């Protein structure tokens, strides 16, 4: 058993993969609690797809993919705010337009390169086994940055999310906190690029946090539970990927989904089974 658990990590690339996916699992899940509470899942998914052109340009120019992704994410994040602000277009419509356009642009750019199919697959669905030491350092630094900002400004984020009206009357600027949240979201998505890829980041943002929301009743506990679910899903997914020889990003996401389904069915008080079996009073 020990051998079975230890064997994958005799490879250096697997050690780096483990470190990277643990970090991503934890950061995504913690930030994801805000994504879930504020119904920003669509925005998160859109933002993830929208970084594709940035990645493509960086790739074609031989620059660092992180930088390209980050620039693209920030441009799109503020672009959505700008288009939606006028009020002539609803925000979800603005998101829909901008993210598909960015996605199309990214695909177009990548299609000009010779190794189109492989490159696109890696960007869309991650390539955690190809994480380099430099990648790992950048991932660790950005993850630390996101976590420090979230914890330092924790009560301000909660205030802006729960009651923007109160935030206003206390002289705060909840829109500024929303903007900062968007920047953190962009950073997190960029960090996740290599582990789960553009196509599956949204799952890591939403699924562990949604699982945690079924198991906990207060926000700090929800964040902790989400981090545990996200971290464990990453590790378990990596084992599955190694022993079954399947794509690692997809395996991580499916483990997280299984955890969610388990909570959805069996969570105390809020699970489907619990509610069915305790509802014995009148009727039905």
């Amino acid at each position, binding site marked *: 058993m020990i051998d079975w658990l230890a064997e994958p990590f005799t490879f250096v690339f697997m050690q780096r993969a483990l470190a990277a996916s643990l970090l991503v699992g934890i950061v995504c899940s913690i930030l994801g609690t805000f994504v879930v*509470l504020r119904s920003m899942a669509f925005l998160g998914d859109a933002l993830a797809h929208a970084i594709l052109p940035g990645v493509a340009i960086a790739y074609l120019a031989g620059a660092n993919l992180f930088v390209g992704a980050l620039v693209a994410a920030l441009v799109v994040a503020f672009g959505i705010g700008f288009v939606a602000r006028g009020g002539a277009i609803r925000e979800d419509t603005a998101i829909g337009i901008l993210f598909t356009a960015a996605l199309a642009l990214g695909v177009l750019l990548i299609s000009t390169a010779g190794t189109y199919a492989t490159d696109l697959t890696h960007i869309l669905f991650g390539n955690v086994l190809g994480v380099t030491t430099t990648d790992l350092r950048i991932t660790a630094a950005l993850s630390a940055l996101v976590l420090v900002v979230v914890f330092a400004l924790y009560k301000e984020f909660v205030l802006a999310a729960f009651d923007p009206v109160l935030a206003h*009357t*206390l002289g705060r600027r909840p829109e500024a906190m929303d903007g900062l949240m968007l920047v953190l979201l962009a950073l997190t998505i960029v960090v996740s690029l290599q582990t789960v890829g553009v196509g599956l980041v949204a799952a890591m943002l939403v699924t562990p946090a949604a699982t945690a929301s079924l198991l906990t009743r207060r926000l700090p506990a929800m964040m902790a539970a989400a981090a545990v679910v996200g971290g464990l899903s990453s590790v378990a997914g990596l084992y599955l990927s190694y022993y079954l020889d399947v794509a690692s990003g997809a395996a991580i996401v499916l483990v997280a989904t299984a955890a969610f389904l388990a909570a959805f069915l069996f969570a105390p008080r809020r699970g489907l089974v619990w509610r069915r079996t305790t509802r014995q009073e009148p009727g039905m």
Partner: protein
Amino acid sequence: MNGVGEAAGQAVLYVEDLRVGYDGALALDGVTLTVPHGAQVAVVGPNGAGKSTLFKSVVGLLRPRSGRILIHGRPPGDQDDPVAYVPQREEIDWRFPVSVSDVVMMGRYGRLGPLRRPRQIDREIVAQALDRLGLSDLASRPIGELSGGQQQRVFLARAIAQEPHVLLLDEPFTGVDVRAREMVLDLLQSMRARDVTVLVSTHDMETAARRFDLVALLNHRLIAYGAPDHVFTPPHIAAAFGGQALFLDGMVVIDQCCPGHVGDGVAHRHTHARRDEVGHAPDRRGRAP
């Protein structure tokens, strides 16, 4: 319009020719009023009269098209003295995973910098506020598990924890039980001792007449403003409530069907404001008869 006669210099709240609108129609049209320090004002009018709009403008959530609002001589959002505002219940996401004491603690955030954690004194003030509204036993409950009246009390406790100089309560008597209603009235009584200036919106004319110093009768325009016996005259009430007001043998009946209200489980709510004799106000210092 009936003036109050206080010098503008003493006024804690000064509203001048206020016009506020949403896409076209004006919700408030040329409202001018002066609220003296420590006064308790009932803002009375039918649904959609602009009561909430007035409060939101005063706390700086809505930008007026024209006119001026000054609190302690300064525009909204520019005060060191906290202005506490308790909106209507519907405006909150009750599934948010926060406990009762978490919510009340948010009232202290105005006195804490963005990076500061709550201090011992903040926790004590929160505990007192919870105790004051009979919520101590529920302190660690998620807010989503509370009844409507309990939820209302949580937000009142939060407003107290802000230690405000100006307190605005939007429809605190709507959709709550008798106990919550009495608690609001007791709270208002205790605010007198602290010289807190209070504005409460309601369509309950009886409470407005019995418990408040001043009444502002509003229906987009300010119909009348002053002492209750001055304001609640048949012509004023007819002007504010129009066809909804029925005068029956020295008694006013307001028939209000609430188009915009959902969630309190009552399709039609009728507010009957009974008074022994219109134009003859009860003791306006608000002691119970």
